[in-house]
């Protein structure tokens, strides 16, 4: 694995975007920063500007207004980057699937690297999802380098 990716996985700075969630998922994400879970152990930080971020973390059902913004943010995040969708809403629009305001799921608009299901997912589940993401990236680069 290249030095670049190794460092990226050890210091992933997260930008948190809510595309119209009910706010429960957002609170569970903030729980990951609290003393009980403390994701700063793994070098993860929550940043306020998209230009500093490595991980775009999306919650919510992706309504018409906010998906435009989500797309613009995805274009602005410096590559290489990862996208994580948290919560049933972000995965498949959950209970809002028949809503007039949520025409497409998020992964039709921007590529999502890992899906974390739950309504809302527990902080443990979010951390487990991130671990899976890290493993996936590691394996992905191994495959590429062996080919």
């Amino acid at each position, binding site marked *: 694995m290249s030095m*670049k990716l190794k460092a*990226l996985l*050890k*210091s992933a700075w997260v930008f948190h975007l809510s595309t119209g969630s009910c706010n429960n998922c957002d609170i569970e994400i903030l729980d990951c920063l609290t003393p009980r879970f403390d994701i700063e152990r793994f070098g993860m930080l929550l940043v*306020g*500007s998209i*230009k500093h971020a490595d991980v775009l973390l999306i919650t919510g059902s992706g309504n018409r207004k906010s998906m435009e913004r989500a797309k613009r943010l995805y274009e602005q995040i*410096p*590559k290489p980057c990862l996208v994580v969708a948290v919560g049933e809403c972000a995965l498949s629009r959950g209970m809002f699937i028949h809503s007039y305001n949520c025409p497409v799921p998020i992964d039709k608009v921007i590529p999502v690297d890992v899906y974390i299901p739950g309504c809302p997912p527990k902080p443990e589940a979010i951390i487990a999802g991130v671990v899976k993401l890290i493993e996936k990236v590691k394996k992905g680069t191994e495959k590429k380098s062996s080919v």
Partner: protein
Amino acid sequence: MIYIFYFLFYGFFLTAIIGLLASWIDRKVTARIQYRVGPPLLQPLIDIVKLLGKETLIPAGSSKITFLMAPIIGLASVILVSTLLWINNINPAKSFLGDLIVVLYFLVIPSVSIIMGGFASRNPLASLGASREMKLVLSYELPFILAMLVTVIKSGFTFRLGEILAFQAQNGALVRSWSGVLALIVAIICMQAKLALVPFDIPEAETEISGGVLIEYSGSGLAIYKLMKNMLLFTLPFFLIIVFIGGLRFDGIHLLYGVLKYISLVALMTVIRNTNPRVRIDQVVKFFWGPMTIIAIIAVVLALLGR
């Protein structure tokens, strides 16, 4: 030739290593205060390596050259200051007339570079942060220079860092006098503002203007700014140690004292950072031009009276 060695080895590598370590101490102590575990030892270095490997985005409509040059100017001035300080600390005879003033000037340039970068990036929040940084510089510079004046007066009106050090080696550190204590307190609080740490982190205020001046920086620009801040985390306490507490020495037990001096200054900064809320910009100006300046003037008067 020897100066290039000083420049690269002491000015850059050693300062960067100690600065990164100090920033780790800062984050770890913060985490422990909040009952967390905190980041691993190499985290600041990993952050910088990661940022260097990322894409550098230049916002549309910004002034490109200023935007890219600003972090480099800041870093260069910090390296120069730390080289000067190391040379004086290792070999006091090498100092030249007025290097105290040179150091004071160069210590302002990192702030100036941040202001330049903020205005060049054509982002309203960054401009807001830059203008706040400017007010911050205006407010803390007066008491800081008054505090330095105390040292100059106490050590017999000399502007050479080397002579200040030699004076302290003979007559004991300047903090042993009343004026020295007052000046050191003022200087520590000004240092907190120079480093833009809480309670004076108004230019970067994460929760109000989300990163402020640095908001548009990504990739290597941000990495250089981070490195600059980490190096300042060593350079500024080192300057105060030289000016007030008798410098660092490397023979025998003095090495331990030196490390203790530095660590206690960093720990003090971290504790101030963790036990205070952020203040408003008008409060900062009032605080520095009011109580701080008065304390500094009292210290100067005491120094003139020989106390």
